[in-house]
């Protein structure tokens, strides 16, 4: 397997041809096919792993160019970049049995990526055929001349019942910008359950209201994931702003101790800000 690019330092500058093509891809699949054909590879798992670095470099290149990048477009590139990275990582690890769910998920992601890439390739090819047909046909001009005067005169007199006001109303609605309903953005590729900051604040409150100051380390000792740790940290900031807790840190980088300062009877998590509670 060839290592496609050594690093960002050498990459872009040395390959002006590649850089010129930066803006010309019409999507992540177009880019992938472009990279694969550049290396004269067949569309295989090897090819995908080989072009991963360049694919990611392309995304970085776009960022450097400061291109206005639509979020949904960027996310599609990123989803595919993530899948490519997974594939490459899987190839670097010693080959083993397919054992756990993660391996199976990776295999499915790989197959799906292959299928989508091949499908895109097919449509790209027929788009080329359509283009050449359109160009060929554009050489023929249809006869569509105005009706000769004496035939136009035969047309029945127009029935016109619109007052200027009705006509203006018609113009008003015709000129109103049409709202195009947004395309539904798939979220199926996003994982992780949601963790509520408010809930975590309540858990912290229960622990601290017993009266004894606790270290942050203790407060997160039963957190089952990083997300919960983050949520508890945010909850503490919220509680501090709400003057419900105080912090003590005896020495720089030492343990942070948290103690309860609010009136226990009247405090409720309902006062906390809503900013982390937006529903997905």
């Amino acid at each position, binding site marked *: 397997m060839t290592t496609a690019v050594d690093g960002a330092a050498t990459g872009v500058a040395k390959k002006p041809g590649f850089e010129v093509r930066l803006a010309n891809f019409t999507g992540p699949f177009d880019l992938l096919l472009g990279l694969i054909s550049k290396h004269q590879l067949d569309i295989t798992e090897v090819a995908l792993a080989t072009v991963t670095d360049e694919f990611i470099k392309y995304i970085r290149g776009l960022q450097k160019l400061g291109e206005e990048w639509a979020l949904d477009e960027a996310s599609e590139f990123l989803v595919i970049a993530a899948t490519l990275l997974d594939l490459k990582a899987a190839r670097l690890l010693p080959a083993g049995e397919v054992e756990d769910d993660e391996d199976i998920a990776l295999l499915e992601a790989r197959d799906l990526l292959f299928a989508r890439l091949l499908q895109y390739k097919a449509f790209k090819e027929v788009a080329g055929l359509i283009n050449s047909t359109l160009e060929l046909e554009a050489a023929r*001009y*249809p*006869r*569509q*001349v*105005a*009706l*000769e005067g*004496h*035939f*136009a005169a*035969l*047309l*029945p*007199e*127009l*029935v*016109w019942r*619109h007052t*200027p*006001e009705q*006509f*203006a109303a*018609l*113009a*008003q*609605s*015709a*000129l*109103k*910008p*049409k709202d195009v309903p947004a395309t539904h953005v798939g979220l199926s590729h996003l994982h992780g359950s949601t963790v509520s900051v408010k809930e975590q604040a309540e858990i912290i409150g229960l622990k601290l209201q017993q009266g004894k100051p606790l270290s942050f380390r203790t407060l997160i000792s039963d957190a089952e994931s990083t997300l919960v740790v983050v949520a508890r940290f945010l909850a503490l900031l919220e509680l501090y702003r709400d003057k419900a807790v105080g912090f003590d840190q005896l020495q720089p980088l030492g343990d942070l101790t948290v103690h309860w300062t609010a009136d226990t009877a009247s405090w409720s998590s309902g006062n906390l800000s809503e900013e982390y509670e937006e529903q997905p």
Partner: protein
Amino acid sequence: MSEPVTAPEQTGGDLSKLPGGARAALEAVLMVIDQPATPTELAAGLNLTVDVVEQLLVELQREYNGYTVKAPDTDDDSDAGFGTSPRGFELRSIAGGWRIYSRAEFADLVGSFVLEGQTARLTQAALETLAVIAYRQPVSRARVSAIRGVNVDSVVRTLTQRGLIEESGNDPESGAILYRTTSYFLERMGIGSVAELPQLSPHLPGLEGIEEFYDAGRM
């Protein structure tokens, strides 16, 4: 009658290599132009001399009328074809310009065909397009399409045919034909000028923000 012109090599070099030569090239142009064209215009576009074009026009006119012209390069005359009966169209010169029309003898037939399915009422699509043109004139078809979100070519043709709108020069930048409403439109609306049209809400977008589909780089 003058000699038929069938060897236009002298003037329009590459035309002779095309099937049918200069005569067919002239026919191709005549068949699709909307406005009558003068021999000078035709000669310039076809890279022929005006004399040659005028001679070809007369030949075509006679041929469509059923008088065949014996061409030196088609001596194989075993198949007379339809050459000797008039065609359904004719080439007419009106006020110095030439255009192909349907033959006058078929006027009744063509007239009833044209009338078939015609209604005295404008469709909703036509009305909306007319409204956009009335309030945004002079405006190109591309811009009306962009505002309405659909192709308006055939509707614009209908409105022109109905005498409600007319061409009004070309856009200085894109060269696209611009359209405006006619005095017949004002008459039907019962107003003296487009300035008398009721004001629209000021919040409507003007033309600035409208994407034109053939702006380079879009799509």
